[in-house]
């Protein structure tokens, strides 16, 4: 049915779609074509055309509505945008196609010729009542212009709102994404930091974090009289657990120990330093007792029974403790001291704590310093020999001298052998040092032989290692030959205990030396087992009786103890003589002692009474 343009449009009963005939579809298709490609439309061409047909009907209704309403045009414009026909081009082409084709395609062209006003008057489209009364065509054109205007307004508004909404939402998405990324980064940094500062097995703070916290204690304020304490904890016999139950059980145990330690240490930082070593930092101690309490709690915590692999297990720990003012120390000092102290706790029996003792540390440090300086000192010739006379008790003749090694330490002055021989034995330097002493003593002995036919023999102390060494015989033989020294001018002293423990090889060594004519003496006789039986089988020619027995002879002969000592000595002497051994008493300091020794038949004596150790030049004078 063709719409009658002359009829007053009925605003209530809007014309149905079928009222527009094929023109409607033609127009909608043209409209669809015009807007296709202006933006992405999520519909098929057919759907688009159908949608636009609907809008076309609404346009026509709006054109004819009485009274003319702006709202209709706005709505159509915004519906276009809602259908995603939403671009500047979309709007331009829409207006163009409506203006060009709507009336024509739908046969809505104003009936009859255009009025004069509508053909030429500038205000033809104004629609104002003053324009001389527009005809129906003019009215339609007028309405069309106003409709297009409102469609454009509605469209532009909707497009702007949509653009703003989309901008807002993408910005929000970017912001959220950025926040999430930052959050994730922070979290991963926190996780990374946790990993970097914690031990993966026990989740305790690790060495790095501990070092940081310890350094923090020093940074905060080192001068205000603050103190700190550190407990260095090490499990006793953990290696055994690992070896017997396996590493997995060992790890399980470590995890449990860590948990107990953390609980035992309360608010104090517990860190795992590695292996079975833990450390507790006790900040702001007021006195040593504060740390001792923590250490006791830690020991108790560690001592609790564990179940590992279904097996009940007990372990103990040793703890090295340092507690001191922050001022005047450093983190590494504290840790070194704690570590040293831990070793003290271990070596004094484990399952206990030890407290750092600066004096003990000082002594150990000196020992350490001495022992490490000794090899170079030997190279540099810092060692020398003093000689102490061994005198005959019958006629006061100088029989021999005992070579005593000295270390002229550049800082510490002259050191006696008790300060360094033990160290040399520990480090093994004793072999080289002993060789040097032997060679030097032989050289000196030979010099005295050249000076006098009554030259003393030189008595040299041998360390166990030297006695056992395979090269001893060769070494002595070489020296005797080198210095052309009569073998009986050399005496080798070995201690009773060394003698007892010597293996067959050493006995062979001594026998060969004795066969050469070298004198063999037992030093410090009476301090060990004093087993006389071996003396028969050994190639010994002299006993040196320990100063302890001689000491007893200082007291008046009326004292019972003194009498006992004298009797022992007398028995010893007669026994020795039975075995064809001479006896030399050591540590003789008074004339009384000398007299009493002489009275019981002792052969020779050595001690301050007969001469202190002296440099070789002074011995020369005694010849």
């Amino acid at each position: 049915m063709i719409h009658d343009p002359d009829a007053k449009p009925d605003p209530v009963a809007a014309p149905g779609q079928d009222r527009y005939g094929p023109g409607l579809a033609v127009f909608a298709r043209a409209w669809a074509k015009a807007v296709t490609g202006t933006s992405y439309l999520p519909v098929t061409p057919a759907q688009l055309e159908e949608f636009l047909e609907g809008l076309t009907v609404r346009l026509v209704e709006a054109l004819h509505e009485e009274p003319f309403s702006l709202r209709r045009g706005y709505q159509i414009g915004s519906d276009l945008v809602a259908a995603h026909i939403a671009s500047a081009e979309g709007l331009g082409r829409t207006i163009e196609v409506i203006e060009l084709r709507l009336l024509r395609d739908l046969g809505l062209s104003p009936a009859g010729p255009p009025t004069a006003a509508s053909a030429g008057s500038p205000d033809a489209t104004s629609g104002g009542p003053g324009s001389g009364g527009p005809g129906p065509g003019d009215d339609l054109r007028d309405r069309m212009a106003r409709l297009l205007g409102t469609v454009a307004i509605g469209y532009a508004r909707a497009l702007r709102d949509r653009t703003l909404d989309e901008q807002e939402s993408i910005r929000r998405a970017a912001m959220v994404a950025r926040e999430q990324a930052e959050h994730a980064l922070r979290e991963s940094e926190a996780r990374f930091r946790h990993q970097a500062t914690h031990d993966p097995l026990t989740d305790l703070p690790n060495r790095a974090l501990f070092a940081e916290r310890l350094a923090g204690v020093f940074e905060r304020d080192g001068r205000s009289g603050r103190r700190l304490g550190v407990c260095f904890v090490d499990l006793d016999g953990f290696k055994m657990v690992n070896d017997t139950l396996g590493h997995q059980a060992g790890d399980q145990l470590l995890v449990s120990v860590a948990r107990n330690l953390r609980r035992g240490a309360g608010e104090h930082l517990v860190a795992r330093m590695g292996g079975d070593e833990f450390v507790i930092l006790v900040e702001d101690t007021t006195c040593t007792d504060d740390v001792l309490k923590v250490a006791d709690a830690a020991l108790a915590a560690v001592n609790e029974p564990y179940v590992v692999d279904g097996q009940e297990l007990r372990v103990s720990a040793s703890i090295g403790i340092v507690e001191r003012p922050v001022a005047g120390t450093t983190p590494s000092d504290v840790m070194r001291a704690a570590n040293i102290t831990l070793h003290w706790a271990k070596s004094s029996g484990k399952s206990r704590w030890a407290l750092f003792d600066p004096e003990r540390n000082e002594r150990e440090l000196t020992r350490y310093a001495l022992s490490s300086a000794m090899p170079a000192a030997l190279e540099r010739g810092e060692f020398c020999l003093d000689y102490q006379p061994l005198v005959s008790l019958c006629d006061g003749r100088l029989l021999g001298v005992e070579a005593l090694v000295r270390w002229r330490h550049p800082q510490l002055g002259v050191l006696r052998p008790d300060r360094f021989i033990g160290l040399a034995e520990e480090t093994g330097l004793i072999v080289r040092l002993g060789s040097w002493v032997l060679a030097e003593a032989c050289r000196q002995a030979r010099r005295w032989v050249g000076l006098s036919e009554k030259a003393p023999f030189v008595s040299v102390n041998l360390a166990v290692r030297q006695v056992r060494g395979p090269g001893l015989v060769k070494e002595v033989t070489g020296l005797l030959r080198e210095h052309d020294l009569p073998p009986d001018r050399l005496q080798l002293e070995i201690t009773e205990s060394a003698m007892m423990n010597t293996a067959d090889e050493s006995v062979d060594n001594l026998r060969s030396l004795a066969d050469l004519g070298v004198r063999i003496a037992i030093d410090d006789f009476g301090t060990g087992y004093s087993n006389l039986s071996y003396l028969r089988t050994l190639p010994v020619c002299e006993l040196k009786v320990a100063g302890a027995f001689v000491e007893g002879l200082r007291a008046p002969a009326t004292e019972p103890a003194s009498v006992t000592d004298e009797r022992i000595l007398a028995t010893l002497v007669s026994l020795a003589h039975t075995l064809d051994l001479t006896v030399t008493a050591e540590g003789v300091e008074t004339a009384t002692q000398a007299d009493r020794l002489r009275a019981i038949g002792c052969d020779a004596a050595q001690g301050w009474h007969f001469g202190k150790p002296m440099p070789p030049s002074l011995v020369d004078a005694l010849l």
Partner: protein
Amino acid sequence: MRRPDWAPETIDIDRPSAARMYDYFLGGSHNFAVDREAAQAMIAAVPEAPLIAQANRAFLRRSVRFLVEAGVRQFLDIGSGIPTVGNVHEIAQAMAPESTVVYVDIDPVAVGHSREILDGNERALAIRADIRDPDRILDHPDVLKLIDFGQPVALMIVAVLHYVRDEDRPTDLVGRLRSALAPGSYLALSQASGEGRSPAEWDEASAVYKRTDRPLHNRGRAEITQLFDGFELVEPGIVWVPEWRPDSSHAFEDVERAIYIGGVGRLR
């Protein structure tokens, strides 16, 4: 401190994003000045760029409709982009409300926006992942929440693989994803081809995308066909995207210049 491998990158919105440029081509406003500027440079090089993007988006729409009609109810859309007009879940759920959709994109802003759009939709979600790490996608708990790999799945890889380098072995990536699919699953895929355009045009287009977060790697028809290894192509096979089951014959004027080549294949 060195950033550990697992720390995420920060968001850089000062660099043009391929996802947001694509939105601009489709007529959306989910983009920033840098994106618009790069998109305009692309239009200067290839004036039909918006039409090409729209044609690809229309291919996506038609393929989803096809897949729903074929009975598929699970969609794994990798490289899903900024949700704008005509998203997979809208198309699929309008036709079959029980359809589930998982969107996957590497662009955190795209994923953020997807989540906002999907808020309240229990059958669709978005995760951030890289197609170059298919195992992470396949094992992702969110993916497994909505997708049952025992049932047919529509794997959508539309307009994505031209952002993946040859070194990353796109054929293997698709193959790995395919290996997780049940028989009766489908692959819908398109990608920018190097065909139908002069080298000069390509150079200019590549230069634009070099400035973005995702440089371009176009592939020829033969290579694109290879991506469908193991799938049986449905009619009309691998074609310029406007030619794939068009809604009307006059959809795209000069298909040779459509850049995108794609198709749909079914897993036997």
